[in-house]
């Protein structure tokens, strides 16, 4: 039959595809080629279509009419609801894996199925299709209920997993092999391993030939068996030593280890021993582990060596995201790594400048103080100097610390922490002072609230000590807690300030975006979304004498003390974590695209589910404001 003249049954499919992304971009011959082989299937409401890890996905499912629920059955988490025009199974098709999620129809659903072979033929002929799907995986916030992200391959990061298959083992060797001659006792061998800071020790014959190896595991065994520590190490030595050629890929080395059930291999190149590789070294390749960065920070011995480390945090965060970590945990991890960098920097600086005349403590304020920093964090730090009471000592301290902080700020900028636009840095004399000076400042802020001071203090009140004598910061915290107790006027002022931040929703619950300027149609997720939560937690924490600084911890403690209802606590917690996550993902994408991270999200780029969640998250702000009004009796005013 001549399809050119007569209508064909698949015309309806073509009409559907023409209105469905990404197929709408294809030309008609391509559409016909796909449509000819489609099936239309029907699933009554409540039919299980996919079982996670069980169902073999044999085609792309396009929902013609109806609705399908995607979820994790084991964890009871709803991931998404897809309706007309949405698709199902693309990810599993690309991965060649079994279904990544459970799927069930919630309505009577008609599905158009493109068989696997046809789908791949189409993606082969039209790369725009695969680009669409891969992009949508990478683009959408992985936070779809925090779960879906685990299964998403971020397209540009697939090479991470491939390292194992491409990198030669030789590339992992970072140090000369540590070897000792025969005849050492077990104890001497252990001592040697500690001295060399290594997990394995090679034994060489007088000829120089390596013939045995002792690892941590062997030492553990020796302890467990109660061996005499003075016995010769040969008794626990493994021999002969398994080895691998330096040019072999890591994957082969891993296979050798797994098949022999060992964790160390000697790497040889042209018959010469190059070093030892452990299974841990190879596992580290698969994604940057936080541990490896941690170790790297500690191993730096020059200040300039610390500069590039900030950049190595990004891949660590990407790995954590892929492993399904929540935003709260990720920001805590960032905080720990940044703390490490700062501490190491100060250590090295003290070595350079000599010891300070008096004890001191470096404070981090703002997001760093709350351990909620993401990537776009500028410096917010302050310095407490111990009271010395002696005039000349005070002057000496001032001279020392003004030079010290000036250098510190410069080094931190080089490390990737930009200068604070409000100059809230320890190099500014207003943010440096003795403990008594600080106490005086707090008193003034609390006693007579003025707009300028309220803003200044709000950032300050999230301080925590990061380096130095932390009892100074504890002392100050104690003072803040007692100073705020009973200062209703100040706290009411702070609370009233919180109420000024209205949730960015219009009357019809649409997002309010910037109307013009460079940031047109974007939403500042930090100022409009996150700040109200932080402000709420801060003022309530001050009011109820809670000393913690993290927003989530504050909320938790408020709830435990009965100041926040269970429902509202959970809503606030989830909303905050979602917003934090959205911000984190936004910045992660920007960083990886080589842009400067900011807080501006374009609501149009969000999926329907994300928009809905975002809207609900903003909705929680109004409820929190209600609590503030009640606590601080702001209705009258």
């Amino acid at each position, binding site marked *: *039959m001549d399809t050119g003249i*007569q*209508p*064909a*049954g*698949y*015309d*309806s*499919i073509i009409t559907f595809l023409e209105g469905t992304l990404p197929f709408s971009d294809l030309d008609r011959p391509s559409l016909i080629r796909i*449509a*000819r*082989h*489609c*099936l*239309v*299937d*029907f*699933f*009554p409401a409540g*039919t299980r279509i996919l079982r996670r890890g069980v169902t073999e996905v044999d085609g792309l499912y396009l929902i*013609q*009419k109806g609705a399908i629920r995607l979820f994790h059955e084991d964890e009871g988490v709803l991931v998404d609801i897809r309706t007309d025009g949405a698709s199902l199974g693309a990810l599993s098709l690309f991965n060649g894996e079994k279904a990544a999620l459970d799927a069930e129809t919630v*309505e*009577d659903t*008609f599905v158009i*199925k493109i068989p696997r072979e046809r789908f791949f033929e189409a993606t082969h002929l039209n790369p725009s299709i695969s680009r669409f799907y891969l992009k949508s995986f990478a683009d959408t916030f992985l936070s779809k209920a925090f779960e879906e992200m685990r299964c998403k391959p971020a397209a540009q990061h697939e090479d991470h997993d491939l390292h194992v298959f491409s990198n030669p083992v030789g590339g992992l060797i970072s140090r000369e092999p540590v070897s000792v001659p025969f005849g050492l006792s077990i104890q001497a061998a252990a001592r040697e391993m500690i001295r060399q800071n290594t997990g394995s020790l090679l034994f060489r014959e007088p000829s120089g030939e390596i013939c045995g190896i002792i690892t941590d595991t062997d030492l553990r065994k020796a302890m467990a068996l109660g061996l005499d520590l003075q016995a010769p190490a040969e008794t626990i030595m493994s021999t002969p030593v398994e080895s691998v050629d330096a040019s072999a890929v890591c994957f082969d080395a891993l296979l050798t280890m797994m098949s022999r059930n060992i964790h160390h291999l000697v790497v040889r190149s042209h018959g010469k021993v190059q070093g030892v590789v452990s299974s841990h070294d190879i596992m580290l390749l698969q994604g940057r582990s936080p541990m490896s960065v941690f170790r790297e920070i500690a191993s730096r011995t020059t200040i300039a060596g610390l500069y590039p480390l900030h950049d190595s945090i990004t891949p660590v965060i990407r790995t954590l995201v892929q492993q399904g970590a929540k935003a709260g945990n990720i920001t805590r991890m960032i905080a720990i790594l940044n703390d490490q960098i700062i501490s190491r920097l100060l250590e090295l600086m003290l070595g350079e400048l000599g010891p300070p005349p008096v004890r001191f403590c470096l404070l981090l304020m703002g997001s760093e103080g709350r351990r909620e920093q993401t990537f776009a964090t500028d410096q917010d730090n302050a310095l407490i100097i111990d009271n010395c009471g002696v005039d000349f000592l005070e002057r000496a301290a001032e001279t020392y610390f003004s030079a010290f902080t000036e250098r510190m700020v410069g080094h931190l900028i080089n490390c990737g922490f930009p200068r604070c636009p409000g100059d809230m840095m320890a190099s500014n004399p207003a943010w440096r002072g003795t403990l008594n000076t600080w106490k005086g400042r707090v008193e003034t802020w609390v006693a007579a609230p003025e707009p300028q001071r309220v803003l200044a203090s709000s950032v300050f009140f999230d301080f925590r000590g990061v380096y130095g004598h932390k009892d100074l910061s504890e002392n100050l915290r104690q003072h803040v807690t007692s100073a705020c107790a009973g200062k209703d006027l100040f706290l009411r002022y702070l609370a009233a300030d919180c109420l000024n931040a209205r949730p960015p929703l219009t009357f019809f619950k649409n997002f309010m975006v910037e109307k013009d300027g460079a940031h047109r149609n974007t939403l500042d997720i930090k100022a409009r979304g996150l700040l109200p939560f932080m402000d709420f937690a801060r003022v309530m924490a001050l009011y109820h004498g809670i000393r913690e600084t993290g927003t989530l911890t504050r909320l938790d403690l408020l709830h435990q003390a009965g100041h926040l209802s269970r429902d509202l606590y959970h809503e606030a917690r989830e909303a905050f974590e979602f917003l934090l996550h959205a911000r984190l993902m936004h910045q992660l994408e920007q960083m990886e695209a080589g842009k400067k991270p900011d807080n501006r999200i374009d609501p149009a780029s969000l999926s329907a589910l994300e928009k809905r969640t975002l809207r609900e998250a903003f909705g929680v702000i109004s409820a929190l404001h209600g609590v503030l009004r009640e606590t601080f009796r702001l209705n009258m005013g």
Partner: protein
Amino acid sequence: MPFSAIDRLLRVLGRGPGTSNLPALDENNRLCRALDQNRPLSDCVFTVLDTELTGLSARKEEIVSVGAVRVRGLAIIPGESFSALVRPNIPLPKFSTLIHRITPEAIAEAPPLHEVLPGLVEFCKGTLIVGHHIGLDMAFINRACRRNHGAALANPCLDTMRMAMLWREQRSPSHYERFSLNISYVLADLAEEFKLPRFTAHDALGDALQTAYLFIYLAKKIARNTPLTLKELFRAGQSWRWYM
């Protein structure tokens, strides 16, 4: 090619019933008689069929277009479809043009039914035929088959209208509804009621597709997630029409 009077006489005398001058038709009928009614519906192959007519009387009126689409494994296969315009021997009445929008000019160049028929028989070969009020369509097709090829199609037929009645009965056992005057069994109304994707009404292929959607909807709804055999479906609807 119409059967001559002699051929008809010969058939009555000796060549026995069911044999025709079209091998595909004979094979179709042989296959249909061998059909196993105990197989689940999902194993069967169906042809969902619809015709547009010059009028409603099988005696006087004629077919102006035929559309059919394949259902296999209770899934529609839009890539396997049949569609043809037919030039009737009688002039196309205006009121029918108003319904199916097929104008006399459109069919002036179309082949007559006896040229379209072998293709249709080939398409239906060995399958069960499904249609909305299928009796009417089959009456027209079989009349043409008998006249041109000396035998009717022996395919068992399923009527989606009957299935819709059966499903309504299953869903709401209240007897009131059955006599309610608001209930419509018109294809478009059923599609609306069951929220099916919609297709052009009164276009033979569009209606065939619509009927196919209705068919897989009803077949799966009536079966309630258990495999349903033809026999059970027939038993469930006591008053099934069988056109053999």
